């Protein structure tokens, strides 16, 4: 029975992240547009884009290799698997033990690895510029993320996300310095990893400032639909991660009843909405920074993560 329920939770979660991901992207766009006093596209525009792209023919450059054609599916799969391992509305995921937070970070790293390769496959200069800058950003964002994982794992005594969420739910004391540092660092990393302002601009039309968009410049039609979906999934994943670790309230514990799941679901949607609105507000209030300012930004995240970890190592009580 438990097995069946966990399987159901797992399947619902996998479908849920897929369904909600474009909505979150749509929400961010809408709120941003409203903050800029534009009407903005409807909330469901990302779904429409997806359907439209799916129906279009795919144009592959003459010298595109099999890797170029396979990467969108691979990147989507890697991101989806990673998103399926992050507890969203309930902790009792059937397969959550098959990968801990380190594995989730590494799965996202795999996605980036292949996307950067796809950017170099056609042999254009824009693809190369995107891949090279993405590699530079990742080389600092990933260690920062690992340090965040370390500080969280040292607080919770586990690298399993479900165990972390359960532990942090049971935490009675007030704020912890390590957790606060980890939260700040995680937000910074999430901004960089998702290519949001100030690190990268997802809505840019100036090629020289693109990072993520430059890598996928050669994609069109169905592969582009998958890549866009994967990008939305990644944004959702980071929002879920922040929600699951830092505001775990509402998460349905394993073996809870339907009411518990309903509360979990509602609180999850609420957390996502808050994250989306906060992101949109943040993005409209800040200017994009120069590419070579990004290392300083991410270096700060890395130092925050390291400091949080060190505090835990040196003293158990922070």
């Amino acid at each position, binding site marked *: 029975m438990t097995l069946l329920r966990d399987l159901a939770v797992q399947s619902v979660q996998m479908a849920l992240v897929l369904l909600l991901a474009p909505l979150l992207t749509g929400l961010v766009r809408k709120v941003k547009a409203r903050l800029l006093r534009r009407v903005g596209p409807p909330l469901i525009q990302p779904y429409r884009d997806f359907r439209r792209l*799916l*129906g*279009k023919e*795919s*144009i*592959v*450059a*003459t010298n595109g290799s*099999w890797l170029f054609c396979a990467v969108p*599916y*691979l990147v989507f*799969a890697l991101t*989806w*698997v990673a998103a399926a391992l992050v507890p969203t509305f309930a902790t009792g995921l059937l397969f959550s*033990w*098959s*990968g*801990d937070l*380190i594995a989730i970070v*590494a*799965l996202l*790293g*795999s996605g*980036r*690895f292949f996307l950067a*390769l796809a*950017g*170099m*496959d056609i*042999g*254009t*200069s*824009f*693809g*190369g510029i995107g891949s*090279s800058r993405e*590699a*530079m950003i*990742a080389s*600092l964002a*990933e*260690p920062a993320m*690992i340090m965040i994982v*370390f500080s969280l*794992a040292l607080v919770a005594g*586990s*690298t*399993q996300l479900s165990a972390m969420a359960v532990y942090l739910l049971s935490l009675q004391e007030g704020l912890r310095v390590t957790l606060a540092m980890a939260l700040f660092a995680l937000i910074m990393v999430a901004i960089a990893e998702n290519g949001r302002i100030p690190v990268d601009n997802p809505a840019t039309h100036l090629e020289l400032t693109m990072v993520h968009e430059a890598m996928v410049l050669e994609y069109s*039609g*169905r592969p582009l*639909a*998958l890549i866009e979906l994967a990008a939305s999934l990644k944004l959702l994943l980071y929002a879920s991660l922040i929600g699951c670790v830092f505001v775990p309230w509402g998460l349905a514990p394993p073996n809870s009843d339907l009411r518990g799941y309903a509360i979990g679901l509602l609180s999850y949607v609420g957390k996502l909405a808050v994250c989306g609105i906060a992101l949109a507000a943040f993005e409209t209030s800040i200017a994009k920074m120069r*590419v*070579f300012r990004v290392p300083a930004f991410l270096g700060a995240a*890395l130092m925050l993560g*390291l400091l949080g*970890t060190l505090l*835990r*190592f*040196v003293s158990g009580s922070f």
Partner: protein
Amino acid sequence: MGIATTLPCIAGLLALSVAAIALARSRAGTWIVYGVSLILSAALLVQGAQALLSGAETSLVLPLGLPWAGAHFLIDPLAAAFQVIVNLGAAGASLYALGYGRHEKEPWRVLPFFPLFLAGMNLVLVADDAFTFLVSWEFMSLASWALVLAHHRDPENRRAAFIYIVMASAGTLALLLAFSLLAGEQGNYAFNFIRIATPGPVTASAVLLLVLIGAGSKAGLVPLHVWLPLAHPAAPSHVSALMSGVMTKVAVYAFIRIIFDLDGLPEPWWGLVVLTAGAASAVWGVLSALMESDLKRVLAYSTIENIGFIFVGLGLALAFHANGLATAAALALVAALLHAFNHAIMKSLLFFGAGAVLTATGERNMEHMGGLIHRMPVTAAAVLTGCAALSALPPLNGFASEWLTLQAILLSPQLPQWGLKILVPACGAMLALAAALAAACFIRVFGVSFLGRPRTANAEGAREVDAWPQAALAAFAFLCVAFGAFPGFATDALSAVTLEFLDVRLPPQADVPWLALVPISAERSSYDGFLILVFIATSASLAALVVWLLGSRATRRAPAWDCGFPDSNPATQYSASSFAQPLRRVFGTTVFQAHDRVVMPPPGSTAPARITVEIRDPVWDYFYAPLAGGISFVAERLNTLQFLTIRSYLTLVFLTLVILLLVVAL
């Protein structure tokens, strides 16, 4: 089984190397030498695996070597584990060379030394006294030195070989001193006597530092690594694979054997030293790899990085062991050993790929490659697997061992020493940085050499290599996936080693449901490469199916878009050095004093603008250059002693005699 069957195989390799002198000039020589090497190393591989799985120890004393001591041999789980690593690499290299070796222009410079090199490495593993160990160690060093010199007409290779032999001699000297300290006043060099005698703390610490120099220079620890990126690429590619993938592991073996087995109980600060050296090597190696555009040299630098990972594992194991935290020490040791095994597979695979590219294009410089994925599909797929594995991407094998190392780091708040408490998280950050940079490095390797458009005519005309190298590439790529999906089998096999030195083992992974990896407990952390692999495959196929069912199916080939301005000149692609430019700017300016210099032509001139990148190696500038300068300064001063008159010489002899007599008299 055990030593009684292992030694004949090694003797067979030695005999083969003698026979190869005669065979080398005949047409069949390549077939016979590599074929027999393949059979013998496969036999040794099977024996090693059996000995490791059974956990049995077998020993033998032969009346060879020093007449009063004899040659002692022993196969214990540690030796068996490394026997597996060495001979897996050796079998792969032999298989690869069945095809690759036929392109060799002067096979007599390679064939006799190849089996000798294999025999030397195998003998180091089974040696059970210092004399046999050092003799085998020198066999290994000299045979590989001869192989580095195989293409000796290239002055760069001669320089590489010279630096290698100097560093190897210094390393052996350090090991010799370490063994003499361990042998103590009785001077008994058999390992079972050294094991019983417990050295004092000062002696033991001196031994650690000497071994760190001796084994560390062979493994490529920073700052003793300078020979490695020169010598490994200079050898023929299958030998490069052996040197980088396997010989560095023999050095790791020597370190473990002496420090964990012979040198008594470790002091807590030992871990600190080893950890620092490991973390520094990891970051230094990968940063250097990112600055380099010679494909084989990039791989050699990446070896330094991975050796750093292994030594961080070993340093953690030492720190835990010194504090009596046996379970944590076992985890760290298993992580190090598993990474040694995985790295042997991954690095051999990539050197095979580099050799295949070298055969197909005649190029080692990545800036002259491009588009090889279309011309060499099998090589490209295998190299892609290797690149992904070395970038520590799940679900491949490199990730499994790095994950274990990170898990071991997470156990270190238990350590009581403040130095370790502060250093270990910093090392964790360095490792994470190195892993992320490694991913960038291998995006660059694969993206520049295999993807894009061909940059030269050589790359344009590349042809896929023949069947033997393809078989070796495919087999090793399969191993990367297999040990990534089922790392539990490898960690279970390695538990015999932790039982031998630490008396504990990780929980048996064979009992864990779904063959997951659970180092401590399921609540704490678990990782299941197999399930992740299945999930990725299922979701990707599901996505493909849905897109196929719901989406349009039209696909058109068209010129590249490139924002409307595609340039047909392949030189407009991103090159290896332009890919590295952001990273060079972020890290290189401080570490390597890198700077780009742009030379613009004067106005009106049609000459092209030029950009040159200047990179300095601080290790060479601040450590080796002064050292070499000092040596030549002293040598020049002493040189005058050779041009004295006979009277002065007589005076010198007389003075020496008087001083010696005075010393004796006092």
